[in-house]
């Protein structure tokens, strides 16, 4: 009802306006001046003054036209001023553009997916690391043998705690690889040394058991050759029987380290032209490395025959005591000179028969190259 009555009034007023628009009222005696016009347009007049001018405007179409014209231009100016203010803030505009509905429509779900994916990835990673930690914890909860750290007190302190943790073993292995710089003190030099230096540094290999009793028998292809095994044979056996995947992984890592150490060792060997000490320690290092690399039997490149240690390099079995600075006698198997030598030294024949191919053997301060 109210809307209808207002519509009726709207129509009546429109008709009234159309009839009266022909009456251009200039009757007002006092038109607004420029100051009053601008102050009225900017709405900065005191209330009483504004009311006075409003009353005039209702009657004076001239002033009303001016006010309308100025009001519209004020709107334009205000808009352009706003634009000027907003224009320098390009950064803000850019930020605002990032949050427009169109962007948000696609960006929000995409962002959500990324977050979900990131969380999922984190969870998977966490699970894996938890598993890893669990495995390590399991092995570590098994008490590590103090015997490893203190061989002398090992058996007395805790006979049951014989299984060393992989970490400890690796540590010991690393230590063993660096034996030339920190020789163990309780190792028994079972190797038959060639000179004093060799015998002194022979302590670097703390595994007398590694030396086979028989020259015909290859070294035991077991991890017992490891330093820990040398100190506790029983532990070594248990360890081999319990070779888990985890341990193999650790062993693999240690083998890598051993290989690197071997390479370093080889370099130093050549640099120092195979000093006796190196010659003694080299087989041990190589042995350990080979054993670790293949897990069980890695002694294919090292042999010990008739109390002599040999390492295979470039298809040639070289006596670890070999000194390239010394002259060597080259012999061919089956030659008369060879037969004469082996007649005097049957052990050399044993070596030559055991090791196929070319051999360099040091025997009683003489170096023989047998082909």
């Amino acid at each position, binding site marked *: 009802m*109210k809307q209808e*009555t*207002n*519509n*009726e*009034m*709207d*129509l*009546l*007023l*429109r*008709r*009234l*306006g*159309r*009839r*009266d*628009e*022909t*009456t*251009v009222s200039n009757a007002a005696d*006092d*038109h*607004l*001046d*420029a*100051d*009053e*016009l*601008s*102050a009225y*347009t*900017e*709405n*900065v*007049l*005191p209330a*009483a*003054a504004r*009311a*006075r001018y*409003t*009353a005039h*405007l*209702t009657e004076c*179409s*001239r002033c*009303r*036209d*001016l*006010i*309308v*014209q*100025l*009001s*519209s*231009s*004020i*709107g334009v*100016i205000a808009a352009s001023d706003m634009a000027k203010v907003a224009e320098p803030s390009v950064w803000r505009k850019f930020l605002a553009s990032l949050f427009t509905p169109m962007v948000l429509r696609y960006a929000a779900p995409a962002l959500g997916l990324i977050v979900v994916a990131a969380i999922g990835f984190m969870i998977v990673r966490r699970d894996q690391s938890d598993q890893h930690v669990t495995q390590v914890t399991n092995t570590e909860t098994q008490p590590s043998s103090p015997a490893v750290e203190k061989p002398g007190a090992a058996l007395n302190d805790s006979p049951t705690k014989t299984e060393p943790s992989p970490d400890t073993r690796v540590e010991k292995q690393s230590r063993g690889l660096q034996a030339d710089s920190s020789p163990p003190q309780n190792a028994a030099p079972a190797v038959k040394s060639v000179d004093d230096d060799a015998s002194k540094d022979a302590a670097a290999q703390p595994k007398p058991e590694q030396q086979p009793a028989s020259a015909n028998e290859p070294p035991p292809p077991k991890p017992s050759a490891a330093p820990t095994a040398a100190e506790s044979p029983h532990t070594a056996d248990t360890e081999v029987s319990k070779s888990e995947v985890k341990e193999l992984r650790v062993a693999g890592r240690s083998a890598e380290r051993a290989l690197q150490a071997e390479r370093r060792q080889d370099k130093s060997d050549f640099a120092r032209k195979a000093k006796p000490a190196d010659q003694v320690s080299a087989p041990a290092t190589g042995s350990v490395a080979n054993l670790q690399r293949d897990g069980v039997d890695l002694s294919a490149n090292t042999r010990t025959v008739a109390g002599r240690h040999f390492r295979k390099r470039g298809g040639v079995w070289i006596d670890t005591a070999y000194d390239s600075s010394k002259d060597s006698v080259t012999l061919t198997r089956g030659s008369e000179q060879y037969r004469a030598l082996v007649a005097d030294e049957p052990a050399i024949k044993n070596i030559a028969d055991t090791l196929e191919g070319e051999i360099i053997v040091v025997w009683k301060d003489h170096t023989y190259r047998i082909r």
Partner: protein
Amino acid sequence: MAAPALPHCVSAVDFEHQTRVDGDRIGSTVKPEIDKLLNDGAARLLARASDNRSLSRELLLPRLTAGVEKYLLKDDPNTPHTDISKFIDELQADDLCLIIACERGDEHAWTDLVERFTPTVRSAARSASKNEDAAEDLAQSIWAELYGLRARKDGMPASKLAYYSGRGSLAGWLRAVVAQLAVDVFRKQSRLVQTEEDTDLERLARVAEGQPIVARIPTPEESVSNRFAQTDMQQALHQSVQELPAEDRLLVKLYYFDNLRLREAGAVLGVHEATASRRLTRIQTDLRKRVTKILVDERGWTQAETERSFAEVAQHLETDLESLLSKEAL
């Protein structure tokens, strides 16, 4: 930017409608206590201006006095002192100092004025003119008025610059000056070119004054509207509009008589379009009550007759003016 040369096209614009605010007329009417308020206000204004152009309080005082008289004391001679101080503190300090300095012949101030407000004057002239040439003439006329009068050396502040009170912005004042000048120039030209259309306009004006048309045969639409014009309702509506408060009456005039959009009408009144719309709805309701009251009380109509008459008249108007209304922008 150099000051524009005095153009030869300085229009003979009359400033009969201008109210000077140089204080000459009213200086003696200001009470002593108000004089002190104005002195203090002048000091504050000079202090807060970023560039007071080395003006003194004495130079500023007449301008402030005139403004207070014009916008406050004229409506209420006992305006509270706080209102007077507030009024002075709200003045555009920099603009006012610039204009007074220009009026006093400060070359730097004049250069600043021209540099800062040439775009404003040009823009205002363009919007008030039919073409670029007319706009350029108009703009030059403005600067000529300001500059030429500034050159007077009789010491009398007769320049247009003397009419700026500092209440509104200087840019707004310049736009108003341009608009006024454009209207005056247009009217002057209109008076020179009398046509027969003027005669028609005058005859139509007589119609509005209630004189009957006998020379013309009314169209069907006019027939309806003439009948409407004869009714008591039309007179009652006219009377009711006249009785509206000034603000409401102005809105009715702007919307129904000047055919402004609500946004434009709101801009004049300083309110939002939505506010103007609500206000207009209220005015319509108010007018209906007023018309009904006049018809019942003064013309002896019954309430039912009034309601029926509203509906009938509206129906006639709706039918007759449908095509016309559809052309009007809402």
